[in-house]
C-alpha cells in the first residue's frame, strides 16, 4: 500500500495552541459566579473522627458552604465502593478530606478550612506491606459490606483488598526438573506522578433538575461518569463531564480526585460553580501514587540457561482504598514472568491496604515494577551460570508460535528483534559487562525486556462529520495528554479519506455529545480509536459514492474512492476530489455525510480462567520492547550517571514516527527518576517529602543521557495500518535496564529502587 500521511513524521496538531499559551487546562476554566473550594484534610493517617466543629469556619465572611462527611455519606469506587467522598467515621490516610469549604475567594476558603476543628482518636497505623500482612490492625473491618461493581477480590478479615492468581503446569515438578533454583526479591518505592498540572475540577449543580456538570482534565471521562453518577445518586445522563486539556496524566487523572469534592460542594451552593485546585502539597499527600511493590521470585533453570519454572509473589501497597489496585494487580500478574517460554509458572498477586495515599494507575500499570524483578532475576541467573545476560534472554524469549505462560500461541511477536536492536544501540557486543573508564569510573551495561497487555475487551466509537467544504470534524473521546492522540487519529482519517491533515479537526470532548470511549489508558487509543476511525471513514466513502453516483447518474457500483477522488470507473471526466466537494454541488440539500465507527475487541478475546488465567487470547494487543543501559558510578562519591539508553520497541507500525520517539524518550527520563531518584518517604503514615524540593524528579541536568531508539515494526494483524500502542511501553524496561547496568558496574546485587549513591558506597565498604 502506498501510504501518504501515516508513517510520516508530522508536527502535532495541538502545538500552536500550546506554544501560544491558549490551551485551556483545568485551572484555566473560570465560570461566572464561581466560588473557590478548599479541603480540610486529616492530619492523622489513621483515626476515628470524634467530632467536627465547623462553627468558626461558617462565621468567616465570604464563606458560602461548609460540609462534612455527615452531610454526604455515600461510598464510591470503580472496582470496589470502599471510599467516602468525605471521611465520616474514620480517616485512613494523612490528607484524607474531612470537611470542605466554598467561599468567595481562595484565601477565605483556605482560612475557613484551617478554622475547622476536628477531634480525632488515633488508631494504630499500618505503614507497610509487612505491617498490613499481620492483619493486627484492619483498615476495612468488613469488606463484605461494600458493593463490588468491578473485578475485585478482597479477603475477609484481612488487609488484602484484591488477589490474583496465574497457574501453568506443575510448579514443584518444574523446580525438581531444574539444575538450579534461584530465589530473589525486588522492591520498588512509592512514586508520585508529579504531573506539572495538579488535579483540578470546577463543578455546578442544577438545584431543580439535579444535573451535575464538571470541568476536569480527566483521562477517562466515560470511566468516571458512572462512578460519579453512583456517588451522587443521579442517573448517568445527569452527569456531564466537560474535558479540559490535560497537563500531564501518566495514569494520575484516571481516578476521580478533585471531581467528587467540587461536586459535593456544588450541591450546597445554590447553583454557583465551585472551583477546586489541588496544591502541590495536596497532590503529593492526597491525590494518587504508584504503589510500592515487593516482588518475590523463585526460578528453576537448566544448566544451559533454559527456564523451567518460575514462581512470582507480588505484594502491592495500594494505600488506604483499593481504587484501581485490582487492575494493576491483573496487568502486572500477566506480565510477571516476562516475555519468556516457561513451562511451569505460578503467580500470586495481592493488594494490601495501608494508611497511605492511594496506589493506583501509573504509566505501565505495574509492568515496570515486575519487569525490574524478572529482569533482575535473569541477570542473577546469568551470573550463576556464567552466561551473557543477553544470550540468556535470547535463549528464552517467546517467538512466533511459542506458548506464553497464559497458554496463548504467540503471533506477530518481535521481542527478540527488540532485544537485539536495543543491544546494538549501546554497542553491547563490543563491550564487557563492566569496565573502568579512563577517569576512574565504574561502568556497566545492562539490558531488560518486558511484555504488557492492553485491557481487553473494551469498546470505542467515533463520529466523523464531513463539513460542507470537504473538511472533516472528528468526534472521539480518547484524551490528549501529550501522547499525541489528537494527531495520529486525524492522520489515519486523512490517509483513509484523502483529506489533507490541516483540514481535519478534533472536536472537544464532552460527555454530553462525544461518543463513548472506555478510557485513555493501557496504550489503547491508536489501536482502538484508529480502528473506529477507519470504520467511520468507510461509511463516509459509501455515502459520498452514493451521492456522486446520483450526480453522475450512474449506479453506485460503478463508482470508486481512490486517494480522495470520488470517480466513475473508467470515466476520468466523472471525478470529484474530496477537497472540491463544495464547488461540485453534490452535497447540496442532500443528507449530511456522517460516518460512525464503533469498535469492540469482545470477539478477539477469550476470557481467561479466573484461577489459572489460561486463555487462547487474553488481550487483543501485547506490547513488547527492550532497553539496554550504560551507567557509570563514581567510586569516590557514589554518584550514579546514566550515560546511554539503547531502546527498541515494537510499535506494529509507526503512524507518526516522531510521536513514537517522543513516547519513548520521555519515559526513558521518567524511568531514570524511578531507578535513581524518586521515592515517597512515609514514617508511620506521615509523608516526609511531599514537595518538589525533597521529592526529586529528573531535571535538565539529570537528563543528559544519550538515547538511541529503534522503532521495530512487526505489523499487528488487527491494528490500524498494523499499529500498536506506545504510551506505556517506553517506561516498562527503563528502570530494569538501569538497575542491571548499575549492578554490573558495581558487581553488586542491589535489589530495590531507587538506587542512591549511599547504596553503592555501602557496597564498596562491604
Amino acid at each position, binding site marked *: 500500500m502506498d501510504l501518504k500521511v501515516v508513517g510520516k513524521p508530522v508536527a502535532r496538531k495541538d502545538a500552536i495552541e500550546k506554544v501560544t499559551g491558549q490551551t485551556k487546562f483545568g485551572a484555566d476554566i473560570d465560570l461566572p459566579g464561581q466560588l473557590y473550594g478548599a479541603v480540610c484534610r486529616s492530619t492523622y493517617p489513621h483515626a476515628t473522627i470524634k467530632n467536627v466543629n465547623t462553627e468558626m469556619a461558617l462565621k468567616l465572611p465570604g464563606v458560602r458552604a461548609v460540609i462534612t462527611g455527615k452531610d454526604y455519606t455515600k461510598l464510591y469506587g470503580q472496582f470496589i465502593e470502599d471510599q467516602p467522598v468525605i471521611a465520616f467515621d474514620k480517616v485512613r490516610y494523612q490528607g484524607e478530606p474531612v470537611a470542605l469549604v466554598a467561599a468567595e475567594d481562595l484565601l477565605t476558603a483556605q482560612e475557613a478550612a484551617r478554622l475547622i476543628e476536628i477531634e480525632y482518636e488515633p488508631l494504630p497505623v499500618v505503614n507497610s506491606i509487612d505491617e498490613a500482612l499481620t492483619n493486627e490492625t484492619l483498615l476495612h473491618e468488613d469488606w463484605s459490606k461494600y458493593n463490588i461493581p468491578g473485578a475485585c477480590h478482597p479477603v475477609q478479615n484481612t488487609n488484602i483488598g484484591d488477589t490474583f492468581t496465574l497457574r501453568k503446569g506443575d510448579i514443584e515438578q518444574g523446580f525438581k526438573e531444574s539444575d538450579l533454583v534461584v530465589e530473589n526479591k525486588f522492591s520498588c518505592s512509592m512514586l508520585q506522578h508529579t504531573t506539572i498540572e495538579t488535579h483540578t475540577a470546577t463543578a455546578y449543580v442544577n438545584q431543580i433538575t439535579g444535573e451535575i456538570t464538571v470541568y476536569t482534565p480527566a483521562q477517562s471521562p466515560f470511566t468516571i461518569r458512572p462512578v460519579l453518577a453512583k456517588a451522587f445518586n443521579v442517573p448517568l445522563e445527569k452527569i456531564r463531564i466537560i474535558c479540559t486539556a490535560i497537563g500531564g496524566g501518566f495514569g494520575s487523572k484516571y481516578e476521580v480526585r478533585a471531581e467528587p469534592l467540587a461536586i459535593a460542594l456544588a450541591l450546597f451552593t445554590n447553583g454557583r460553580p465551585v472551583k477546586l485546585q489541588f496544591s*502541590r502539597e495536596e497532590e503529593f499527600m492526597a491525590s494518587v501514587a504508584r504503589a510500592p511493590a515487593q516482588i518475590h521470585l523463585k526460578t528453576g533453570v537448566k544448566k544451559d540457561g533454559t527456564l523451567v519454572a518460575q514462581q512470582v509473589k507480588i505484594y502491592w501497597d495500594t494505600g488506604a482504598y483499593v481504587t484501581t489496585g485490582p487492575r494493576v494487580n491483573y496487568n502486572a500478574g500477566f506480565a510477571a514472568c516476562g516475555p519468556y517460554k516457561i513451562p511451569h509458572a505460578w503467580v500470586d498477586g495481592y493488594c494490601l491496604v495501608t494508611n497511605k495515599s492511594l496506589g493506583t494507575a501509573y504509566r505501565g500499570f505495574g509492568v515496570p515494577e515486575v519487569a525490574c524483578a524478572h529482569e533482575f532475576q535473569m541477570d542473577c541467573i546469568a551470573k550463576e551460570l556464567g552466561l551473557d545476560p543477553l544470550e540468556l534472554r535470547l535463549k528464552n524469549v517467546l517467538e512466533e508460535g511459542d506458548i506464553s505462560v497464559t497458554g496463548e500461541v504467540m503471533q506477530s511477536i518481535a521481542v527478540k528483534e527488540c532485544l537485539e536492536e536495543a543491544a546494538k544501540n549501546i554497542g553491547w557486543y563490543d563491550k564487557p559487562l563492566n569496565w573502568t573508564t579512563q577517569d576512574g569510573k565504574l561502568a556497566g551495561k545492562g539490558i531488560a525486556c518486558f511484555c504488557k497487555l492492553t485491557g481487553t475487551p473494551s469498546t470505542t466509537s467515533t463520529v466523523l462529520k464531513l463539513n460542507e467544504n470537504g473538511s472533516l470534524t472528528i468526534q472521539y473521546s480518547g484524551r490528549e495528554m*501529550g501522547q499525541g492522540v489528537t494527531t495520529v487519529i486525524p492522520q489515519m482519517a486523512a490517509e483513509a479519506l484523502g483529506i489533507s491533515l490541516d483540514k481535519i479537526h478534533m472536536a472537544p470532548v464532552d460527555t454530553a455529545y462525544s461518543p463513548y470511549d472506555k478510557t485513555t489508558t493501557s496504550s489503547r487509543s491508536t489501536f482502538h480509536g484508529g480502528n473506529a476511525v477507519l470504520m467511520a471513514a468507510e461509511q463516509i466513502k459509501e455515502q459520498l459514492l452514493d451521492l456522486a453516483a446520483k450526480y453522475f447518474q450512474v449506479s453506485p457500483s460503478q463508482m470508486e474512492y481512490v486517494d480522495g477522488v470520488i470517480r466513475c470507473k473508467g470515466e476520468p471526466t466523472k471525478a470529484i476530489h474530496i477537497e472540491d466537494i463544495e464547488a461540485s454541488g453534490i452535497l447540496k440539500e442532500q443528507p449530511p455525510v456522517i460516518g460512525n465507527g464503533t469498535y469492540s475487541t469482545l470477539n478477539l478475546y477469550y476470557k481467561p480462567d479466573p484461577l489459572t488465567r489460561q486463555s487462547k487470547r487474553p488481550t487483543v494487543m501485547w506490547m513488547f520492547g527492550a532497553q539496554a543501559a550504560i551507567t557509570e558510578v563514581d567510586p569516590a562519591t557514589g554518584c550514579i550517571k546514566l550515560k546511554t539508553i539503547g531502546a527498541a520497541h515494537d510499535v506494529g507500525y509507526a503512524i507518526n514516527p516522531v510521536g513514537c520517539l517522543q513516547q519513548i524518550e520521555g519515559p526513558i527520563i521518567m524511568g531514570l527518576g524511578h531507578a535513581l531518584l524518586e521515592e515517597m518517604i512515609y514514617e508511620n503514615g506521615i509523608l516526609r517529602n511531599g514537595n518538589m524540593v525533597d521529592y526529586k524528579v529528573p531535571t535538565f541536568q539529570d537528563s543528559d543521557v544519550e538515547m538511541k531508539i529503534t522503532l521495530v515494526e512487526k505489523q499487528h494483524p488487527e491494528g490500524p495500518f498494523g499499529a500498536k500502542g506506545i504510551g506505556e511501553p517506553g517506561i516498562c524496561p527503563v528502570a530494569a535496564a538501569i538497575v542491571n547496568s548499575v549492578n554490573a558496574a558495581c558487581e553488586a546485587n542491589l535489589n530495590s529502587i531507587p538506587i542512591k549513591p549511599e547504596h553503592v558506597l555501602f557496597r564498596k565498604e562491604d
Partner: protein
Amino acid sequence: MKTLTIQVTVNGEAFCKTVGVNMTLLEFLREELHLTGTKLGCNEGECGACTVLVDGKPVNSCLMLAVEADGAEIFTVEGLAKDGTLHPLQEAFIEAGAVQCGFCTPGMLMSAKALLDKYPKPTAQQIRKELEGNICRCTGYDRIVKAIILASEMNKEG
C-alpha cells in the same frame, strides 16, 4: 486587607490596578488580567511553569508579589507571537517536537527567551544549566534543548 495601586506594562500594554499586597504576580496575571497562559504548577518556586520575564529577567511569578512588580515591564507567553507570526522559539519548539502535554511549555519558552537574550548561541550544556529550574515530565528534555539550539540558529539567519 491592605491594597496598593500598581502600574505595569504587560506584553506592551499598560495596566493600572489596585491589588492586595499579598497577591502574587502569577495570580495577578491569571486572575486580574486573565492571561492564563502562565501556569501554576507548584506555587513554591520549584517547577518553572510560572516563569515570566520581568524587566527582561526570568522570574518565578509564583514567588514574586504583584506589588513588587510595580513599574516593571512584564513579558508573558501571550506576548511572544507578533502580528500573527510565531516567535522563532515557538516555531522551533513545534519543529523539534519539544511540546507534548504543553503545560510546562509557556514557562520553558520564557526561560528559553531569557537564555537566548543572554547567550544568543548557547551550548547544550548552557541550556541544561540555565533551564534547570523548569521541570518537564513529558519530553525527557532532549527535544527542548534541540529546539532552543534550532531557534538560536533561526535568530542568526534572521
